[in-house]
């Protein structure tokens, strides 16, 4: 720290980030120790125990758990619906972000709040409100409860903000001048979109989509009341984990949890690759 204070500021390069990290002082080291200990007690050790629990049973547990048709069906349904919802979010989320950034109209601020509601609303309440509009007492006469459509609907609700909030700031930074230049050089609206806008937005769309998919496959609260948890029809992976926990079978519960984690990681890697390709080639 003394080095920094004594070195004349004129000689240091202007470009250097203003952040200047120093080595640990003794109080900082103690603080770090306390913090990491708490983090381990709360998060790291419990999560590690899941993988130990799953690995402890060896491949047998995975084979047996996935061999259970009800569990396999639940995982399949969860992944399918999460993929579908992510696809819709990529299109609708980008569209919503576009309208929020490029359009001006009365009530736009209210729209911003509405988009964040799924983040702030307790998931059980989310399920309840969807049930009141799309359940047995629906004023619209649409009843999706206890079907696989209810899973789609609930996931669509809880993942709404991810793509919007990822794309919006990038879109704000995008200079409309570049698009105007492309248009003036004869590019059609579609070409401008594909060649100019899409490549710039691709990484943020992908990161929003990753979050949306990860949230989708792990959702629980909003589905409890809405989906009815019918085996082979509307039962998702999280509900399977819950049932295994209740039936005192932590090994199987951990196996499903590890499988979900692997699916989430695979999604992150895939979307990352896709977005790089799009960003490069347009």
């Amino acid at each position, binding site marked *: 720290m003394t080095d920094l204070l004594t070195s004349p500021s004129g000689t240091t390069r202007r470009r250097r980030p203003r952040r200047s990290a120093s080595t640990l002082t003794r109080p900082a080291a103690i603080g770090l120790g306390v913090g990491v200990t708490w983090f381990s007690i709360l998060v790291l050790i419990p999560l590690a125990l899941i993988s130990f629990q799953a690995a402890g049973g060896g491949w047998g547990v995975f084979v047996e758990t996935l061999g259970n048709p009800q569990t396999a069906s639940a995982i399949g349904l969860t992944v399918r619906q999460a993929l579908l919802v992510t696809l819709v979010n990529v299109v609708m989320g980008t569209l919503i972000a576009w309208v929020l950034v490029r359009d001006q109209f009365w009530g736009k601020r209210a729209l*911003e709040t509405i988009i964040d509601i799924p983040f*702030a609303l307790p998931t059980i309440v989310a399920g309840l*409100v969807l049930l009141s509009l799309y359940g047995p007492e629906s004023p619209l006469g649409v009843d999706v409860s206890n079907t696989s459509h209810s899973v789609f609907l609930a996931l669509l609700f809880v993942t709404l903000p991810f793509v919007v909030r990822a794309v919006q700031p990038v879109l704000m930074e995008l200079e409309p001048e570049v698009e105007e230049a492309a248009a003036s050089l004869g590019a059609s609206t579609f070409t401008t979109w594909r060649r100019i806008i899409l490549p710039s937005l691709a990484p943020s769309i992908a990161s929003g989509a990753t979050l949306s998919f990860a949230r989708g496959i792990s959702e*629980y609260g909003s589905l409890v009341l809405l989906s009815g948890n019918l085996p082979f029809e509307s039962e998702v992976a999280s509900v399977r984990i819950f049932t295994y926990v209740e039936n005192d079978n932590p090994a199987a519960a951990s196996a499903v949890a590890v499988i979900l984690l692997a699916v989430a990681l695979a999604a992150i890697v895939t979307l990352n690759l896709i977005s790089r390709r799009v960003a490069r080639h347009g």
Partner: protein
Amino acid sequence: MASHATGRGPRRTAATYVRRGLVLVYLFFLVAWPVSLVVTRTFGDGNHLASTLQDPAVVFALQMTVVVAFWAVVINTVFGVGMSLLIVRYDFAGKGLLNTLLDLPLSVSPVVIGLALLLAYGPRDGYFAPVLDAINLQVVFSVPGIIMATAFVSLPLVIREVVPVLQEIGTEQEQAARSLGAGGWQTFRRITLPSIRWALVYGVVLSLARSLGEFGAVKIVSGNISQQTQTATLLVEEKYLEFERGAAYATSFLLTLIAVAALVVVTVLRPKEEKA
């Protein structure tokens, strides 16, 4: 930079209105209408809110939720500010790894979080059960477990808000204060805290909203015993399944009110912080 709001008006074509209409219809059917129904169902046929608040189970669950959320937020605020300072201001081995791991709670299913805490602190087969027995502390199926589950799910929210601001403000002012003889605590209170104030409030509000609404992790860890370990979100489920729909909607109405209030606070704070 934000010039497209003023100056040159946006070109409005038919497509503009189609896009706007599509977005409005989508958000109306997906969010606005369903959420508004919680008000209709609470006050539609008689005032369910007043009668629900007479129910001791409801009052207990609401108190439990407030107590749990309070402690979870306090823990996460102290932990979050400390960790943010360490990550931004100091270099140490494994910093990158720690930074990545701190985001972990946001991408783990609440049910998996519940399972993890059960495996570690469960009363019978939990990994730490012998230790907890020795010091006579019950974590799972008791309030400490509920607080831990709640703190777990909302852990990164304060850090994610405070870290970018700390990086942005740099250390010049703190170093100046230090060189003028201020102690560590004084520097923190007089210089650092005021600069991260809005980010901190924002993080706290987000944590609070998340903590009040946690369901899956708490359901596993609490045991869900009415008037002992039942929180408001668990009560909503139970009341709905027991066909006490009025009570379920009234409790949901209160939770929605808090969630929307949190959002409004955040929206009001955001622009201030950006202008500062």
